[in-house]
C-alpha cells in the first residue's frame, strides 16, 4: 500500500515540465488570442526552449532518476538534450520567413515543434522500454503532422502520409521487439534487464526481440535498410521541416539507440554489434552511391544524412567509451553542418520562387560570394575534409573502430566517404565553375544568423575542439 502512495519524485524532469507546460500554455494562447498570434507563440516557444536549456545546465550534477527509475538524467542525456533544444530552436528561427511566405504561419507549428522536442527529450532520458516508446511516439506523431503542414500541397500531404504509414509500421516492430525483450527478461526497466542478463542467459528469443527493437530505432535515424522514406519525406515536406527532421530527431533517436544498446544489453554486446556493423556499412555505402544521381538538393541532403548516420553508427559498433564519445561528437558536428546547409537551401529564392535544384546554384560564387563560400565550407565539411569539423567527427569514430579491432568497418567507411566526397565536391564545382544564373534574392536576417553560427562552428572547430571533446567524453562515460 505504501508503495502506491510513494509520490514520484519529479525533480530531475524539470526541463521537460517547462517544455510541456509552455506547450499547453501556448496552445491556449494561440487558440484564444484574437488576431495574428503565430509570431508571439513562436518567440515564446523559443523562450521556453531557452529556459529549458538553462534549467538543464543549472541542474547539472551526478546521475539522477525519477518516476521509479523510468526516467534518468545523466551527463549524456543533458548533453544530448542541449543539442536537441539547439536544433529545434534553430529550426523555429529558420521557419519564420518561410512559413509566412507560404501562408502556413499558424501558431500550431511552434506548439507541435515544442511537443516534438518534448518527445525527444523524453526519449533521451528514457530508462525503460515504456518510456522509450512513449517519448518516441510523442515525437513521431508531432513530426508526421509537421511533415504534412503545408496541407494544400500534394507533395507535403504525401510526405506526411508516407512518413505516417511507415512510421506506424516501425512503431509496430519496435513494440513487438519490446514485448519479446520484456517476455524473455521479465522487466521493461533497462537496469533490471541488465542485471538479469548478467546472471542469466536469455537465449535466441531475446536476440530476436532485440533485432526488432533495433529495426524500429533504425527507422527513426533512417539507417539502411529502413531509409526508404527519407528522400521522399525531405523533398515533400516544407524545407524548414526537412531541416528539423535532419537535425533534432536524429540526435534523439541516435541517443536512445546508444542508451538501448549500452545500458541494458552489455552482456550480449557481440549480438547487437553485428547488427549495428551491418546497418552502418549498408548506410554508408547507400548514402554514398545513391546521392550521386540526385538533382534535387533536398533529396541529396537526405541521402547524405543516411550516409552520415552510417558513419555515426561506426562509433556505436565499437561499443567502447571512445566509440560513444565519437558518436556524440559526430552527431553534434552533423547537426550544425546540416542546419547550415538547409539554411542555405532556404536562401535559394529567385523572383519569389523557391528553388530546390542543384543546377540553380550554378555560378553562385559570382553573385553571392559569401553564401557560395559558406556553402562550400559545409560541403567540404560534410565530405570530411580537414581541418573542418566534419573531418574530426569521422576521425573520432574511425579511431574508436580501429581500436576496437573493426578494421573492415573502418576501411569500408573511409572508402564510402571518398565516394561521398564526389557529390559534395560536385556542388562546389557547380557553384564556382559553371555559368552563372541570375542572383538569388537577398537572404533573410535570421538565416544569416544560423549560417554564421554553424559556419563559424564548422570552420573554427579545431580551435575549440578540446573542451567539446572533454564534454563528450564525460557524457560517454556517464552511460556506461
Amino acid at each position, binding site marked *: *500500500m505504501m508503495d*502506491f502512495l510513494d509520490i514520484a519524485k519529479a525533480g530531475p*524532469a524539470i526541463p521537460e515540465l517547462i517544455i510541456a507546460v509552455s506547450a499547453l500554455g501556448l*496552445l491556449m494562447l494561440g487558440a484564444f488570442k484574437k488576431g495574428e498570434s503565430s509570431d508571439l507563440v513562436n518567440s515564446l516557444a523559443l523562450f521556453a526552449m531557452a529556459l529549458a536549456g538553462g534549467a538543464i545546465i543549472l541542474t547539472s550534477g551526478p546521475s539522477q532518476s525519477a518516476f521509479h527509475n523510468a526516467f534518468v538524467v545523466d551527463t549524456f542525456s543533458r548533453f544530448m538534450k542541449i543539442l536537441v533544444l539547439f536544433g529545434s530552436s534553430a529550426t523555429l528561427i529558420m521557419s519564420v520567413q518561410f512559413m509566412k511566405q507560404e501562408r502556413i504561419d499558424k501558431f500550431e507549428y511552434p506548439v507541435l515543434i515544442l*511537443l516534438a522536442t518534448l518527445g525527444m527529450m523524453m526519449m533521451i532520458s528514457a530508462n525503460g522500454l515504456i518510456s522509450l516508446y512513449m517519448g518516441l511516439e510523442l515525437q513521431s506523431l*508531432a513530426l508526421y503532422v509537421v511533415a504534412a503542414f503545408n496541407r494544400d500541397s500534394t507533395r507535403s500531404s504525401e510526405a506526411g502520409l508516407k512518413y505516417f504509414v511507415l512510421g506506424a509500421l516501425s512503431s509496430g516492430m519496435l513494440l513487438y521487439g519490446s514485448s519479446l525483450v520484456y517476455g524473455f527478461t521479465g522487466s521493461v526497466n533497462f537496469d533490471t534487464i541488465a542485471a538479469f542478463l548478467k546472471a542469466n542467459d536469455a*537465449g*535466441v528469443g531475446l536476440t530476436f526481440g532485440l533485432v526488432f527493437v533495433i529495426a524500429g530505432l533504425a527507422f527513426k535515424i533512417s539507417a539502411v535498410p529502413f531509409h526508404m522514406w527519407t528522400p521522399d519525406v525531405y523533398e515533400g515536406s516544407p524545407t524548414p521541416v526537412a531541416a528539423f527532421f535532419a537535425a533534432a530527431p536524429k540526435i534523439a533517436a541516435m541517443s536512445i539507440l546508444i542508451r538501448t544498446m549500452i545500458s541494458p544489453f552489455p552482456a550480449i554486446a557481440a549480438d547487437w554489434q553485428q547488427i549495428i556493423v551491418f546497418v552502418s556499412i549498408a548506410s554508408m555505402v547507400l548514402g554514398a552511391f545513391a546521392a550521386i544521381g540526385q538533382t534535387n538538393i533536398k533529396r541529396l541532403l537526405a541521402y547524405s544524412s543516411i550516409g552520415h548516420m552510417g558513419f555515426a553508427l561506426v562509433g556505436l559498433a565499437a561499443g567502447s567509451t571512445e566509440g560513444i564519445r565519437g558518436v556524440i561528437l559526430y552527431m553534434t558536428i552533423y547537426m550544425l553542418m546540416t542546419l547550415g546547409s538547409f539554411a542555405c537551401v532556404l536562401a535559394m529564392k529567385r523572383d519569389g520562387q523557391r528553388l530546390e535544384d542543384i543546377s540553380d546554384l550554378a555560378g553562385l560564387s559570382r553573385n553571392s560570394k559569401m553564401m557560395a563560400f559558406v556553402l562550400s565550407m559545409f560541403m567540404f565539411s560534410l565530405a570530411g575534409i580537414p581541418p573542418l569539423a566534419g573531418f574530426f567527427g569521422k576521425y573520432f569514430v574511425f579511431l574508436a573502430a580501429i581500436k576496437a579491432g573493426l578494421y573492415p568497418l573502418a576501411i569500408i567507411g573511409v572508402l564510402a566517404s571518398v565516394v561521398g566526397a564526389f557529390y559534395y565536391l560536385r556542388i562546389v564545382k557547380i557553384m564556382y565553375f559553371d555559368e552563372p544564373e541570375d542572383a538569388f534574392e537577398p537572404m533573410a536576417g535570421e538565416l544569416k544568423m544560423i549560417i554564421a553560427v554553424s559556419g563559424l562552428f564548422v570552420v573554427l572547430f579545431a580551435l575549440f575542439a578540446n573542451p567539446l571533446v572533454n564534454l563528450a567524453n564525460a557524457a560517454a562515460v556517464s552511460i556506461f
Partner: protein
Amino acid sequence: MTVAALFFYLFAFTAIAAAIMVIFARNPVHSVMFLILAFVNAAGLFILIGAEFLAMILIVVYVGAVMVLFLFVVMMLDIDFSKLREGLNSYLPLGAVIGLIMMTELLMILTSWNIDPQAATVVASPIPDGVTNTEAIGLLLYTRYIYFFQAAGLVLLVAMIGAIVLTLHHRPNIRRQNIEDQIARHPHSAIEVKDVKPGQGV
C-alpha cells in the same frame, strides 16, 4: 464455483467463435458486429475475475465509441470486398510461405521460452482488502505510473492538434448562424418605419 465455470466457458467460447467470425464474415459490417460480440464477451470474462471497472471501460470505450466509429467508417467507405479478393489465388503461395516462416519463427521462440517460477505468484496477486479495483487502478496509475499516464495524455493531445491543423479550414466568407447576434437583434435596428404620405409613394 460451477456456475462461474459455466459462465467462463460460455464467454470464452463465444469470444473465440466471434473472433473467428470477424475474419471469416464476408460482409465487413458483420465483421464489426462480431467484433462487438467478442468485446462484450471479453468484458464478461473481466467481470468473472472481479475486474468490473475494466469490464465497463471495455464496453463504454471499445463497444460504445471505437466500434460505432468503425461501423460508420465501414458503412461509408462502401468497399467492394469481392474485388479485393480477386488476386487472392495468385498471392496465396507467397502468403503461405511467409506465414510458414513466421510460424517456424514463433515456434523457435516458444521452445526457448521458460516461465519464471515466480510469475504465477505475481499473476495471482490480489487487490488489497478494502480497496475496490477502480481505486487500485487509480492508485497505481496516478502515482507509480504517472509519467507514462501523462505522456500518453500528451500523445493524444498531439493527435488532436494534428487532426485539427490538417483538416480544419477557416473560411471567412461563409455565412454561419450566430445565435448571439440573432438574439441581440432589436426591432430598432432591424425595422425601419416609414411614414408614407398618401398619394406620394415611398
